[in-house]
Structure formats: C-alpha cells, structure tokens
C-alpha cells in the first residue's frame, strides 16, 4: 500500500476511535485522552530522533521528562524570599565552590606530571572540595527547609508565565543530555541503554530528595496555568453567551427555571471542555512545529548524513563525518524535545510530583509508541503515540468490562471475583508487552515503516 494512504487510514481510524469515545463515554474524557496523546506524540518524536535517526538506545526518557517538569515548576513558581534570605547566600557559596572544585579537577586532569602525584593531588582536591562544599551546603539546606516547611520549605522559582517553561524544559534537558552524552555516548548500544536507565533513576532520586530545590515528595501543587480557570469562565457573562449560542439546540423550547438550570449545567461542562480545548490547541501547535522541523531535518542533507551514520558508522566516518559529534548533537536534540514534552505534561497536571515518575510509564511506554508507530518515520511516531496512549487509557475500562463479563456468573463475595476485578487495571502492562512483541516480530518496521529511497 502507498505510504501516505497508510498514514491517512491510520489517522482516520484513530479519529473514529476518539470520536467514538467522545460519543459513547464523554467529550471530556475524549479531550483528556487527546491532550495526553499530543504530549506523548512530542515525546515519541524526541525518542524517534535518537533511535529512528541515529540508532541511539536511550532508556532514560523518564529523567528528561522529569527535567521538563522541574523546569515548569521552577519557571512558574514565585521565588520564596524568606528562604533565599535564610539560606541563599550559603547555597550560592556552595555552588561557587563546586564550580571551583570542578575547574581545579579539570585543570589538574590536563596537567602532565608524575602519575602518582597527580592521583594524590586529585584525591585531595576532590575530597577536600567535597568537605568544603558540605560546610556551606548543609546549613543552607537546613535553613531553607526549615522555612515554613508545611507550605513551602524550598527556594521557589522565577515567577514567570508557565508557557516559557516549555522552552526552559528543553534547555534543562539539553544541558543534562550534553553532560551525559559526553560521558556515555562512547559506550556500546546496550551499555548506553543501561547507563541511561541509571541516570534517569538518579535524576528522579535527586528530585525526590533535594527538598530545597523541588520540595521533594511533598510535591509542588497549584502551578499556574497558561489557560483560563473553569470557575472564572463560569462567571464570565461573555462565556455564558457563547454557551447559549453553542447549545442553542439543547436549550430551545425550555423556559424559566428549567432553562437556567440546564444553562448552568451546560456552562460547567462547557467550561471544562473549553479549558481542555485551549490546552489541546497549545499542545497541537507545539507538536506541529516539532513535527515540521523533524520532517525537514530528516529530509535535509543533515538527515541523510545521520542515517548514513546509523546504517554504517565505519563507512560514514571514512567519508569524513564526525560520528561522535553527530551522536552528541542528536542525543541533545532528542532529549530537548522530550524535555519540552515533560514541561507540557507538568503544565497540564498543574502540579510537580517527583514520586509519580516511573520508568514503565515514562520511558518504556514511549518506546513502545515509537516501535509500534514505526521508528525512523516521524508521522509513524505520532501515530504510534496516539494508538498506544489510547490503548493504555482504554485498557482499564475494557479490562474491567471483560472481567465483569467473565466473573458475572460468580458469587458476589467470591475472593477470586474480587481479585480479578481489582487486578483488571494491571492488564495494560500485559497488553503493551504483547503489542510490542507482536509488532516487532511480524512488522519490524512498525505501522508506518521508515521511507527509504526507491530501490
């Protein structure tokens, strides 16, 4: 089948499925799924840049998504001036000392001298530096975390509009990816996978435990929004006029108290839909920008070079391509896209909760999206993200429904029945694994395989 036709059919089926959810469940549920599909699609594009273009097996997606989340929180939260006053100066000194120690170690590593002298000097610098840093860092952290711990207890952020944080999330992820890439990209593919898996766990551990920065597991809730609040909408006369106009059909023929009651209900529902639509519009804009850039990049000479490196590193290097630099570049770009998506996700949630980041949901699920959709194909990754997120969400009601049928004949208090009904939600892991294995086995290119030059 013609590839564009396949894509069209794929997205067509997806649209029908979403419309079905809207019609049979509710439009609110449908929009909630749709918004997360959009975010997942951006994340999947980031993974596709790394795996599909360059063959880098990065299983640290969770860490970069969480970095985006931190960015959203830090950008939008107002700074806590009392905390800064309590521990800010000590913390800044600790930061400066850290930079100094790193610079000293860096200089020392370039120094040519007796090996053992160098090792001893290095040990002194690093250990001495560590003790020195702790001298300033520990009291700073104690002071900051003691400042109104129930409500704040952290430094706060910059207090900028949260929409900027999406770019900041990309930058955060890019910086960390650069550092990681410098160290880990020389490793073989499966070692790189293990290394990135470890790094993402460490990033999450830092976010959970450095309360002065992120409030840790106490979470930061009530982040500001880039879109209006439902309650404000429900009180705005202009919005009520819109609702009256939009639902004119439902309201026609109703009079007096019934009409105002109906209008009230429609306004509540409409406000929720409107907010989700606003988010959806913003996310769709980001997705389209990223997608267009990705398509252009893949078709450009740069894209050809990157694919050539992926297919045969040795011959690409022989052609004078700098394999290491391109890998680093791709790693940073892909991670930045994931960071943007992570910031969008935290914006949508309205809270930053480091405890909820789990590798199965934030790393491996995104991988399933890319593999099922078609690695190396941008549109495929987007389609994969839609399908997999849809299945991930709908697996639970579907599992419950199936279990309901399967256990219908059992008695009410039967432990097996209760157990089966309780466990239905875990079916989604099983389903994901089976989908991934089946696609890998029988259609290794995914639903929309990579398009190569006509041979």
């Amino acid at each position, binding site marked *: 089948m013609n590839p564009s036709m396949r894509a069209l059919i794929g997205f067509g089926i997806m649209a029908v499925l979403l419309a079905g959810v809207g019609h049979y469940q509710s439009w609110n549920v449908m929009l909630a799924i749709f918004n997360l599909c959009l975010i997942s699609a951006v994340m999947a594009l980031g993974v596709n840049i790394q795996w599909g273009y360059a063959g880098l097996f990065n299983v640290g997606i969770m860490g970069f998504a969480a970095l985006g989340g931190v960015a959203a929180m830090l950008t939008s939260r107002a700074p806590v001036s009392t905390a800064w006053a309590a521990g800010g100066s000590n913390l800044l000194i600790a930061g400066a000392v850290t930079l100094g120690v790193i610079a000293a170690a860096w200089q020392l590593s370039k120094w040519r001298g007796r090996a053992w002298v160098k090792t001893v000097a290095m040990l002194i610098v690093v250990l001495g530096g560590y003790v020195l840093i702790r001298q300033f860092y520990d009291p700073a952290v104690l002071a900051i975390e003691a400042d109104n711990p129930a409500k704040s207890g952290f430094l706060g952020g910059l207090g900028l509009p949260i929409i900027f944080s999406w770019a900041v999330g990309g930058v955060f992820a890019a910086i960390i990816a650069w550092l990681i890439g410098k160290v880990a990209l020389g490793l073989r593919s499966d*070692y790189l*996978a293990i290394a990135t898996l470890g790094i993402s*766990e460490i990033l999450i551990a830092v976010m959970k*435990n450095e309360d002065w920065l992120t409030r840790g597991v106490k979470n930061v809730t009530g982040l500001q929004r880039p879109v209006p609040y439902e309650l404000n909408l429900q009180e705005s006369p202009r919005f009520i006029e819109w609702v009256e106009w939009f639902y004119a059909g439902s309201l026609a023929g109703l009079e007096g108290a019934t009409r105002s009651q109906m209008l009230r209900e429609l306004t509540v529902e409409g406000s929720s839909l409107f907010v989700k639509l606003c988010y959806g519009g913003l996310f769709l804009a980001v997705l389209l920008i990223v997608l267009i850039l990705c398509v252009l990049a893949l078709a450009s000479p740069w894209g050809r070079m990157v694919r050539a490196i992926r297919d045969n590193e040795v011959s690409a290097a022989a052609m004078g391509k700098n394999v290491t630099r391109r890998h680093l570049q791709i790693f940073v770009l892909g991670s930045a896209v994931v960071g943007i998506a992570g910031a969008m996700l935290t914006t949508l949630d309205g809270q930053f909760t480091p405890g909820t980041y789990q590798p199965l949901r934030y790393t491996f699920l995104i*991988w*399933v999206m890319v593999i099922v959709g078609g690695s190396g194909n941008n549109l495929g990754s987007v389609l994969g993200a839609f399908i997999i997120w849809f299945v991930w969400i709908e697996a639970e009601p579907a599992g419950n429904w199936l279990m309901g049928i399967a256990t219908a004949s059992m008695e009410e208090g039967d432990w097996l029945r209760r157990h089966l009904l309780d466990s239905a939600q875990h079916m989604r892991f*099983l389903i994901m*694994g089976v989908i991934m*294995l089946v696609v*890998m086995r029988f259609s290794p290119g995914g639903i929309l395989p990579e398009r190569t030059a006509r041979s």
Partner: protein
Amino acid sequence: MIDFLNALTLFANFVLIPGLTYGSQLALGALGITLLYGILRFANFAHGDTMAFGTMVTILATWWLQGTGVSIAPLPTALLALPIGVAATAIFALATDRLVYRHYREVKAPPIRLVMASVGVMFVMNGIVRFIIGPNDQSFMDGERFIVKARAFKNATGLNEGLAIKSSQMLTVVMAMVLVALLFWFLNRTRTGKSMRAFSDNEDLALLSGISPQKVVTVTWILAAGLATIAGVLYGLDKSFKPFTYFQLLLPMFAAAIVGGVGHPVGAILGGFVVAFSEVAVTYAYKKFITYLVPVDYAPEGLMQLLSTDYKFAVSFIILVVVLLVRPTGLLKGKVI
C-alpha cells in the same frame, strides 16, 4: 580496646553483614545476567521481572503449604516451595525463548533488537506479576527470625553494641556459596557445562565441533531462571517482596555483571560484592563508629554520611560508569562483543 571492639561490632552489624547478604543476592542475579550475556549475547532487561515472577510463584506455593500446615521450622517454609518457583520460572523462560527470542537468533538480528524484545517480555512479566499478586508489599518469612539476637550478644560479650544476625542473612550467604560451588562444578566439570563455555568463547567453532546450540540455550535459560528465582526469594525473605523493587534491582545487577566483566561468572560474583559493599558503605552514617574510635573531644557533630540512603542507585551507577570508562572489560577480563 573495648571501644575498638564496639566500633568493630557496629561496623559488622550495619555494614559487613548487610553488605555480605545483599552482595550474595546481587551476585546470584548478576550470574544469570552474565550467563545469558555470554551465551545469547544480549542484556536481558526482563531479568528483574523474572526474579519477581519466580518469587511470586514461590510465595503462592508457600502460602499453599502454610495453608496445609506443612512446616520445616526453624527454616522458612519458602525453602520447600522454592523448587516449584524455579520450575515454573524455567518453564516460563523457555516459553519466552521459544515464542520471542528464537526468531531473532534465527534471523541473526543485531543484539539491540534482542534487548528491545526483552523490554517487551519485561512488560508482559510485569503485567502478569501485578495481575496475579498485585503491586503491593508481601512478606512471606516464617520460622525462626534470628540466629544471634542483639540483646543476647550484648549480654554474652558485655559490649555496648549488639550484633544481630537474621536467619535470612545466614541462609542467603550459605545458599549463595552452595549454588556458586555447584554452578562452577557444572561449568568446569560436566560435558554440558564445558560445551556452554565453548559456545560462549567462540560460537562458530563450538557449532563446528558438534555442540547442539538448542541444548546450550535451553540449559542457559534454566540456569538463569533458577538463579534469578533463588536470588529473588532470598531477597524477599531478607527484606520483602514488591514487584517494583525487583524491577529496580535490575540496575545494580547490571552494574555487578559489567563491573566484574560481562560473560565472566567469577566477575559477576566479585561485581555483586563490589556494588553491594559500596552501596552500604557509602550510605552508612559513620558518626557513632568514629565516636568510638577517636578521643571524646574529636567526636564528629554531623552524621558523617557520604550520601543519603536514597542515592544508593547512584552508587551502583557511578561504579558502573567509572569502570566502563577506565576499564571497559570489567575487573576481570570479560567479553566485549
């Protein structure tokens, strides 16, 4: 002198014994990873969930045995249920090999595709475990809990510090030693074991000399599944069983296998202890320990903890990266395929 003994007891109680136990558990897990890596040549991401699966079957069998009143007190009942867990896990592993991995071997897919397939298997196993036993903590330790109790030790020696040895800790170390001895006997002395090593060293040459690849692969899966199950059960007896924790054990196990030298069984054991002792030693608070050793005036004020306990993953990871950068073949010379 008495202070020195106190410090020593403290160290043994909080660093030496936990490190030894955790190291044995990691070593058993890492042995499975390293065997699979040596023979099938891929990093098995589903190994943590294989451990969880085997432990789950063992727990279910334990509950059933407890229900029927069977007991081998003072030993935990789980030991009796262990063979059932090992058998079930081996069958499951062989089934995944037949359904998933064999295809990629036949088409000679690059190792990274096998790794990705193992991610798929990981999802499936994770789903099954969560579906059957749920995502929560399960404790299945019974029988005698302690071999040496802290209070009894204090009374017997007159020291300030107590030394407690849990029976699960003793069991772990003994089991690990027996298993490792058996494994090395098998690899070095039996025909099948020798053919496995030959296969790992040079696949083509091994095939030419008439070694059946199917047999080697089957035995490898059974060994890996058995070791994973036992490691998982011992870990569960020592701490507790939780599917997510087992998934997270993947990283220290990988670290142990790579640090020791991938494909090298002795290396996996060495690596297990290196990782375990670093984790325990770096996250231990040395305040009390140093207070015993130095004159009263110099007693430290802080906890003297290098890293908070929450960063123990960071430890295994940092060791991993340092070894990969400085000595990519691992401490003992392993394979770099």
